[in-house]
C-alpha cells in the first residue's frame, strides 16, 4: 500500500477528517451571497484563493481507498482532465460568467473539486508520469499568468486592471512554486530509484 504523497499522519485523526470539510465550506462559502463581494471585487481572491481551496478540498477527501479510484485510474484521462479544467478556468470569459451565472459557478465548484480528487489519484499511481502531467499544467499557469500580468486591456469585465495584474503575478508565483516542488520531487524519485536499483 502506497502512502499518499503528502500524508499528514502526525495529525490527529479527527483533524484529518475535518480539514477537507472545513476547506470545502470555506471555498463554497465564498460563492454565497453574503460574502460573494469578495470574489466579485478581487480577481486574486477568485483565482488564487477560492479555486485552489476547491482543488485542495477535493485533494484532501480520502476517496482513494475506495473502489472509485480504480475506475479513475486511466492516466491519459486524468491528465487531460487536470489540463483542460485548468485551461477552462484560466479563460477570462469563464471567470466573468462564473460571477454572473450561478450555473457556471456550480460547474466551477464541481469541476475543481473533481480536479483535486483526480490529482490525488494521479499522485498515487505512476509517479514520474504524474510529474510530467503536472509539469505541462504548470507551463500553462505561467502562460496565463504572464498574459494577465502584461495585458493593458481589461480581460474580465468584472475586474479592474490592477486586480488583473496582481492575479497575473500571483499565478506566476504559484507556477514557480509548483515548478520548484516538481524539481524537488523528481530529484527525490531519482534518488529513490537509485536506492532500489
Amino acid at each position: 500500500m502506497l502512502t499518499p504523497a503528502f500524508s499528514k499522519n502526525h495529525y490527529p485523526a479527527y483533524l484529518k477528517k475535518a480539514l477537507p470539510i472545513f476547506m470545502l465550506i470555506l471555498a463554497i462559502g465564498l460563492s454565497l451571497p453574503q460574502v460573494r463581494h469578495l470574489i466579485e471585487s478581487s480577481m486574486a481572491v477568485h483565482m488564487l484563493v477560492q479555486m485552489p481551496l476547491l482543488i485542495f478540498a477535493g485533494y484532501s477527501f480520502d476517496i482513494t481507498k475506495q473502489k472509485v479510484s480504480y475506475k479513475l485510474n486511466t492516466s491519459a484521462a486524468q491528465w487531460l482532465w487536470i489540463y483542460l479544467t485548468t485551461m477552462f478556468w484560466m479563460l477570462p470569459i469563464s471567470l466573468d460568467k462564473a460571477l454572473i451565472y450561478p450555473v457556471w459557478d456550480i460547474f466551477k465548484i464541481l469541476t475543481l473539486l473533481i480536479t483535486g480528487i483526480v490529482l490525488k489519484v494521479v499522485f498515487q499511481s505512476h509517479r514520474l508520469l504524474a510529474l510530467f502531467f503536472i509539469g505541462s499544467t504548470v507551463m500553462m499557469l505561467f502562460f496565463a499568468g504572464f498574459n494577465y500580468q502584461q495585458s493593458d486591456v481589461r480581460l474580465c469585465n468584472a475586474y479592474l486592471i490592477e486586480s488583473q495584474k496582481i492575479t497575473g503575478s500571483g499565478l506566476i508565483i504559484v507556477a514557480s512554486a509548483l515548478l520548484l516542488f516538481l524539481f524537488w520531487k523528481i530529484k527525490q524519485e531519482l534518488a529513490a530509484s537509485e536506492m532500489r536499483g
Partner: protein
Amino acid sequence: MPILVIAFWLAFFNLITHQFSNITLESERRDALFSQQPELSFLQTVDDNGHISNLAQLAKNQQKTLIAEFIYTQCRAICLSLGDVFQQTQAEIIEKSLDKKLGLVSISFDVDHETPNTLEVYRKRMHADPNVWALLTMKDASVLEAARSKMGLIVVPDVKQGFVHNSAFLVIAKTGHLIGIFDTDEMSEAIALALKLSH
C-alpha cells in the same frame, strides 16, 4: 475514458466561448449587440438644457447617424482620452461639413451626481458645439440598469470614488437602432460605417 474527457471539455469550451469565438465577455457582448441591433428607446436621457428624450428619438429627430460614448464628467482617466477623440472628431465634422449627416453624443452614467449644470460645465470645458455634439445624462438609475442588462454596459466603482467602465464607440442609425460598436482606437472605422449609413 480519455475520449470522454476530451468530449466533455470540448462541449463546455464550445458552450462558454460560443463556438470558440469569444474568450472575453466584452467580445461576446459586442457580437450579441451586432446580431440584435436593438432599438435604443429604453435609453432615456436628460440633456444639458434639461430636456428629457431618449437615444432613439434623438437620432430620428435629427435624422443623423450618431456616434455615442459612455462617460462621466468628473472622470480623470479614460474619459479624458475619449473626450479628446470626440474633440478631434468634432473638428473633422465641422471642417468637412458633415454636421448634417453625423452627430456625436456623450452619455453620462453617473446618475447620482450628473445634472444639466455639470453637463454645461463639461460643454464649456470641451468646447462642444451644440449642433454637433450632444451631452446627455441617463434619466435615472433604472436606465443605467437597463443599459447594463440590455447592452452589457459595465460600470465598476473604483478606489478613488470614481468608476471604471468599458469604453467603446457606439454607432446608432437614424432609425434609432444600434448597429455597431468600435474600440476607442477605431474612431475612423466608426465614422466610415456612420457615413456609409447616412447616404
